[in-house]
């Protein structure tokens, strides 16, 4: 038993995990249909888009930064690649282009933040407007549907592998890759160091500018993948796709125990955080809470979760 709890402790905070379990039990009690295979598969599908973005956001927040442009990057990279498909580009290439564009847009954020020494909040707030605006300009405000029903694209968001939604499998692959990158490589160490104390990290040889560009690139890249999943599911790229997703992603990261001050947190917390947000969305729907009230509840849950975290930190500091 001890080794199991040790493992869990190393993997994530038990409190977050317990919160997820309690939430699931509560919702099941109120409406048992929550626990049907069908609904759970549906839930996993709903979690994926936010999951991808939240994984990238974890890197950003660990350095003490923030990325408000993720939703807009999602929309712009989807729209541009959808345009390419409409113009006759082969699907696999267009999918690749989508990811490259997302990474590129993220790199632009990183470049201004690192070399322009600008506050991440301001830079990504501005690029959020720019990218969203460009999406509207490019799409003329209309969804792009031409040539969007090819199998390759459809499979990304709608396919099933061994009975599990393919996008969820893709998300797990992304999680494992980013988990290893963050926790098992020198790059990961420098991400933490940067968030812990940027000056000390720089003097110890961390190339802060490069690391910053890299993490915003990762964030952009993950947003583009989330965009692919959504585009595939809807068989169209819409100009309003991903609107407000930055808030869900930030919420997932914070619920997962990552400190907004940087330097503290884990990838595994984020996946639990994303699941909590997903269960809330899905569960509140199932028990018949109006969408208006859903927002209120989600906001309240975040406040409580972070408050618990603050109290716990204070206690561990005192002991």
């Amino acid at each position, binding site marked *: 038993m001890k080794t199991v709890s040790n493992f869990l402790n190393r993997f994530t905070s038990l409190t977050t995990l317990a919160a997820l379990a309690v939430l699931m039990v509560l919702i099941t009690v109120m409406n048992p249909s929550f626990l049907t295979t069908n609904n759970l598969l549906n839930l996993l599908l709903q979690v994926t888009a936010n999951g991808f973005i939240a994984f990238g956001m974890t890197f950003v927040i660990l350095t003490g930064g923030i990325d408000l442009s993720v939703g807009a990057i999602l929309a712009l990279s989807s729209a541009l690649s959808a345009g390419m498909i409409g113009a006759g580009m082969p699907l696999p290439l267009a999918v690749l282009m989508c990811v490259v564009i997302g990474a590129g847009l993220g790199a632009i954020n990183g470049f201004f933040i690192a070399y322009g020494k600008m506050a991440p909040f301001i830079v990504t707030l501005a690029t959020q407007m720019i990218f969203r605006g460009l999406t509207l300009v490019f799409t003329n405000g209309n969804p792009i549907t031409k040539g969007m029903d090819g199998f390759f694209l459809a499979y990304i968001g709608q396919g099933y592998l061994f009975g599990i939604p393919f996008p969820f499998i893709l998300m797990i692959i992304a999680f494992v890759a980013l988990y*290893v990158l963050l926790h*098992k*490589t*020198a790059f*990961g*160490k*420098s991400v*933490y*160091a940067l968030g*812990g*104390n940027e*000056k*000390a*990290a*720089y*003097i*110890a*040889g*961390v*190339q802060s500018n490069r690391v910053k560009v890299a993490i915003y690139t990762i964030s952009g890249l993950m947003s583009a993948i989330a965009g692919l999943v959504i585009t595939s599911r809807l068989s169209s790229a819409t100009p309003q796709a991903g609107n407000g997703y930055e808030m869900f992603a930030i919420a997932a990261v914070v619920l997962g125990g990552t400190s907004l001050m940087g*330097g*503290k947190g884990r990838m595994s917390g984020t996946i639990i955080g994303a699941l909590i947000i997903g269960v809330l969305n899905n569960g509140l729907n199932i028990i018949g809470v109006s969408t208006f009230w859903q927002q209120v509840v989600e906001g309240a849950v975040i406040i409580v979760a972070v408050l618990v975290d603050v109290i716990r930190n204070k206690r561990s500091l005192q002991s």
Partner: protein
Amino acid sequence: MKIELKNISKAFGVNQVLKDISLTVNSGEVHALMGENGAGKSTLMNILTGLFPASGGKIFIDGEERTFQNPREAELFGISFIHQEMNSWPELTVMENLFLGREIKKNGLLNNKEMRKQSRAAFNELGVNIPLNVEIGTLSVGQQQMIEIAKSFLSNLQILIMDEPTSALTERETSKLFEVIQHLKKRGVGIIYISHRMEEIFKLSDVVTVMRDGKVIDTKPTKDTNVNELVKKMVGREITDYYPHKNTPVGDVTFEVSHLESATNKFHDISFSVKSGEILAFSGLMGSGRTEVMRAVFGIDKPKSGVIKLHGKPIRIRKPLDAIRHGIGFLTENRKDEGLILDFSIRENVTLPSTRNFVKNLFFNTKMAMLFVRDLIQRLTIRSTGTEQIVGNLSGGNQQKVVLAKWVGISPKVLILDEPTRGVDVGSKREIYELMNELAGKGVPIIMVSSDLPEVLGVSDRIIVMHEGRIAGEILGKDANQEKIMQLATLGE
């Protein structure tokens, strides 16, 4: 106002820093407080002014027992503490600083007219001439200090505590300060004057108290004692004991810096070289540009021009990583700000500059890092619960050793140490000197920036003294004494 401290003791955890201290300060008297770093002087003053409570003992003011909850309360009572590092807000104007937290108001709005009037009156009384509407950050340390004094003067000053007030002052500023102190004394203000500088003690003080290892060794009228007696009481042992003997020879020139020129006018035409196994000290007053030179050498601030050579070959250092790749380590003067990530473990801190050494097939090998850090913990005698202890929970001395371990961990070819023993207890100090000797013994050239003169004299083979951004002179360790260094540092010749 008369202050009596009776049997004050203080422990931080198991560390007993003050033991049964009694001290009396009368109004109109300058009471000098001497003792080495870590003797407990500042702790005692912090207890008096309410920064933290004593573990035992009582404080009497004019015969009445009293404890202050915080420094502000002490200040309102007339007891002000001017720290070495001043707490002014650099972006605020002189007047805003003077009235910070006790602004004078009229109908709920600031009454600038009245504040200006009072500021001028205080400045006149002290003979200070500083405009009221400039930002504090643009003023010299001496001027900032005058503002601090004026600030306490504005709030019913009875007892003024000054911690090493002249350490960063020019000669002219120092004599101005002494005038002000004499004036305050006449007005009946009691002054507690913490200093290491003998001349000042004998020039200014009426009574002198020597502290050592948290105890009062002696209190005497200044006229009844002399320099030798004070030094003996302060150190409590021969100085040769205190600095471990370095008996390793100095080799060939390994590291050279020539014609280094600051991009921001902080230093000019700096050329020096260090030999293998040599400990080279950089001495000088605060603000003389020593730290800035080292920051430029290490690639933190870009210099305007200059050449750096390692083993005779010019090397390019444009960022700290370049320096580290060439095997240069740099312990910065401010460990909390630039040396450590306080929330991180000893292992994470120590391995930061050498991360790449633990990467095997792309992956960071935590086990290898733990073993490596465990060795360093033993070698540097870092007192901790293990490699995973959070650095923020260690004592100052042990934190400093963690920073040292970081740089020892890169197997340095050149080691630059900026104030390596600042805020470090006596025992750890000695261990740090021993480590320096050990590294020098292995041929590592060490450059040490230090404001602690006995330390400079005690550990270095050669001393370079800086004055206002230039190298004022060079003295061999065996020929050096405090007077020679101070002369170069203050006069530049």
